[in-house]
């Protein structure tokens, strides 16, 4: 356990950056009571500097604190709130069911706010997991202990060409069922238990977390003489397992990547998986503040399918429409969240329909028709047809998403909705080795005091690639190819 600091902070303004919408300013200013449980290997002074650069101010030091259990000594902050009132969401009634790999009954949609953070190594040098953990855990108001997760790319150099299929199992029975299915459709090169450890504050049940490195075994008979292609073979298998096998959920299935997620605070999940033991070239992360969903391990973000993973802060008001589109394309919704649909949509538009990333982003967060009229004729044609053809791909409502893709080169995409209703900030280190994305500036300052930060435009994607650098900074014309 670390120390706790109470901080009164006046938080920086989020300016809704949009060169295209009527100049609206959404100014959020909160007075914040921050309790910083600090698992980080940073000095107090460093942490303080990260805070101060966001306008926060240290006023006192409080004693050690356990954040969640009601047996902790009751502490009261200056406004009279007790820890229990802040953590009451975690006090499940005795005997209440918590879900791991089994879908909670009746679940059809999850909503709420979230914190997102990502970092990408532009020069290809791997980064250890404690950095992303620092970025995510600092954004405390953005989570309430009901889910957090991390995705890491470029972390299995020895098995780079194998699909790493990582599962949550409720029990050995589910594991056996999945293994027989895997044996049928894949050649398992190697499998191992994913390292996990008990975390005092995380209430059981814990899932069995297991990973299999495998190669698709595509028997002609299995698919009626038609070969769907390697990726679709894996996609179909994942969909089948998540839909049909009780007590098992495939949480990631891409090459050279894995997802580490669960039902808890971001720092608990990092501790559960011992995140610093992993290094990768691209990290994304997510912490949840759900308003309605039961505790469900598999429902946490990132949600992932083959080489895609998505962390999503938002509530898609067009979910019913978007879901139709992916179901028409053969995807099966098993997690029942709007985020899941976003994953499938990127897979459909970019991998299967071969749209350039910014054209896919345009379909999801298009310009208005009035703005399209101002484009040059060729761009106007493309814009009209993207909107008309992919009307079901339009993600309406507030969102900021981090999309990572592992193949052919690990790529990070960050995109905010076309009205910029949820925060998204981008940064680049002084030496140009790293790029960052986050909901809040403090997340970037936490790990890089001198980074250059900027806001992407509403609906305009930030795109960066490992080894290539930043391809789009989020201010470009959607149909101009900026850097190959």
């Amino acid at each position, binding site marked *: 356990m670390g120390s706790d600091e109470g901080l009164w902070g006046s938080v920086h303004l989020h300016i809704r950056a949009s060169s295209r*919408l*009527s100049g*609206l300013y959404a100014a959020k200013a909160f007075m914040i009571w921050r309790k910083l449980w600090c698992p980080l290997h940073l000095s107090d002074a460093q942490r303080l500097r990260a805070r101060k650069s966001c306008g926060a101010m240290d006023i006192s030091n409080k004693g050690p604190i356990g954040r969640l259990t009601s047996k902790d000594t009751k502490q009261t902050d200056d406004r009279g709130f007790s820890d229990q009132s802040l953590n009451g969401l975690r006090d499940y009634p005795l005997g209440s069911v918590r879900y791991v790999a089994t879908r909670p009954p*009746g679940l*059809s*949609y*999850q*909503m*709420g*706010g979230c914190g997102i953070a990502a970092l990408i190594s532009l020069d290809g040098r791997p980064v250890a997991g404690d950095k992303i953990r620092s970025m995510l855990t600092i954004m405390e108001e953005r989570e309430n202990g009901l889910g957090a997760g991390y995705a890491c790319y470029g972390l299995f150099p020895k098995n780079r060409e194998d699909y790493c299929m990582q599962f949550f199992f409720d029990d050995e029975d589910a594991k056996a069922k999945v293994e027989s299915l895997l044996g049928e459709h894949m050649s398992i090169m190697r499998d191992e238990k994913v390292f996990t450890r008990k975390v005092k504050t995380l209430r059981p049940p814990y899932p069995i977390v297991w990973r299999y490195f495998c190669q698709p075994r595509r028997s002609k008979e299995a698919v009626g003489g038609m070969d769907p292609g390697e990726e679709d073979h894996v996609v179909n298998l994942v969909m089948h397992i998540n839909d049909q096998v009780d007590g098992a959920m495939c949480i990631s299935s891409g090459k050279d990547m894995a997802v580490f997620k669960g039902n808890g605070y971001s720092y608990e999940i990092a501790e559960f998986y011992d995140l610093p033991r992993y290094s990768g070239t691209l990290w994304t992360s997510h912490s949840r503040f759900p*308003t*309605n*969903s039961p505790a469900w391990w598999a429902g946490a973000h990132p949600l992932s399918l083959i080489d895609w993973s998505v962390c999503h802060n*938002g*509530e898609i*008001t*067009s*979910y*019913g*429409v978007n879901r*139709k*589109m992916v*179901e*028409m*394309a*053969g995807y099966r919704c098993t997690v*029942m969240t709007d985020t899941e649909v976003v994953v499938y949509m990127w897979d459909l538009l970019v991998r299967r*329909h*071969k*749209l*350039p990333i*910014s*054209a896919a982003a345009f379909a999801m967060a298009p310009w*208005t*028709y*009035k703005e399209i009229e101002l484009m040059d004729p*060729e*761009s106007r*044609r*493309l814009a*009209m*047809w*993207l*909107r*008309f*053809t*992919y*009307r*079901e791909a*339009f993600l*309406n*409502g*507030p969102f900021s998403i981090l999309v990572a893709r592992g193949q052919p080169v690990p790529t990070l995409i960050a995109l905010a909705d*076309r*009205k910029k*209703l949820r925060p998204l900030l981008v940064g680049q280190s002084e030496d140009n080795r790293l790029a960052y994305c986050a909901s809040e500036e403090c997340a970037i300052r936490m790990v890089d005091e001198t980074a250059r930060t900027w806001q992407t435009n509403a609906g305009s994607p930030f795109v960066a690639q490992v080894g290539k650098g930043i391809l789009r900074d989020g201010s470009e014309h*959607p*149909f*101009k*190819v900026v850097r190959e």
Partner: protein
Amino acid sequence: MPERFVPVINYNTCRVCKRCVNECSYQALDFKDGKVVPAGGCVACGRCISVCPASSMEIRTVPSQFPPHGNWTERIRRGIYAQAGSGGVLLSSCGTDGDHPVIFDDLLLDAAQVTNPSIDPLREPVETVTLLGGRPGKVDVSENGVMRLEGGEKPIVVMDMPLMIGHISLGSVSYNTQKSFFMAAKELNIIAGSGEGGLHPDFYQYADHICTEIASGRFGINPEYLKKAAAVEIKIGQGAKPGHGGHLPGEKVTPLISQTRMIPLGTDALSPYPHHDIYSIEDLAQLISVTKEAVEYNKPVGVKIAAVHNVAAIASGVVRAGADFITIDGFKGGTGSSMRVIRDHAGLPIEVAVAVVDKRLTDEGLRNRVTVCAGGGVRCSADMIKVLALGADVAMVSTAPMVALGCRVCQQCHRGLCSWGIATQREDLMQRLDPEVGAQRVVRLFSAWNEELKEVMGAMGIDSVESLVGNRDRLRYQGPNPKIAEIMGVKHIGEGWG
């Protein structure tokens, strides 16, 4: 037979100007012994009330003169007397006036609170632009310094609202009525249907905003009629009379109509019930191909069907046959003349029809290949919003704009005596409708609806209409029959999002 309505004149204030007597096209008023008196046959069209300068006119519903009976209603008995007297089928007009449940009214709309912001259409863009046409399902983009659309485009119509004025033929309504609608469609930048009565040469100037119709009677079809229009629609059926063809009583076939339709003067214009070159789905596919060929692939070609019990499978067949758009006309759709037995007893309510069609097309992976228009019982902006949320890209309305022109829904269109100059061919009556004024009233009505659509979408946190289309998650059912909700794919009130 006892009268149903009776005009009552307040003789204390009546100025004896006799305007009401002159204006009553049904001759239900007479002038005797120096005063205006009822002459029988009042249909409650309300014309006399609107022209009375002294506000001395009132129409009263005569209390039933039949001994009360819960089963043998007055309506049933009147029908028997009429048929016993004439030996004919009962004709009627407008949509069914039966006491059917209105599913629209059992649906409640959603709104955003806290977890996502609602949008204020007065301050931020909320889009209602709607595109009509076939959809490719996939776009090819080339990357060569600049992204470009690869390959050919299909024809589309860009409209400013998800609304179209339905098909109302010249013949069923007057020249001035059609002119009002076409002028309004042009000003609103939406589409109006020509109906199956051809297109008068005067109206070619509005052709960019007209969807012409190929019906089984093939009235008034020539190359120009097809090529100049914004879109072409093959009419298979109509919601008010599924399984029947158009019916224009001979009284309405004046020289103007006979020229436009290319039919003899004074004859009933009865469209065959089927197209006699379409006896099955593959024949429809051929007619769609022929039509596309005729318009040189420059216009969307659609198909209109009446909502019947198997509508979902039929719609899927129609899309597979190559239709760029499909129009579904519900059970409560209007008509200028229809057999009452069909109008009141055959078909499927549009709320259910559009939901099952949308679902079926989605299940078959066809929904992103087609534009769906739906109407037949859309009375107000709330109905329009709900029909969109149930799965229509475009809401088709016809009776509402006629009401905007003055129609009182007296259900006498088939008699051709419309005192408002709407559903008539009599020159003197037609002149009561000024197309300029009529067009303005329709423009104002639809603009108001569109504003209400934006307000509702904004409240839901949706800023473009395509994200409302088929978004049944944002509806809840509060009616008496949850089975309907289940079929429509709409959750019950009290059920959240998960």
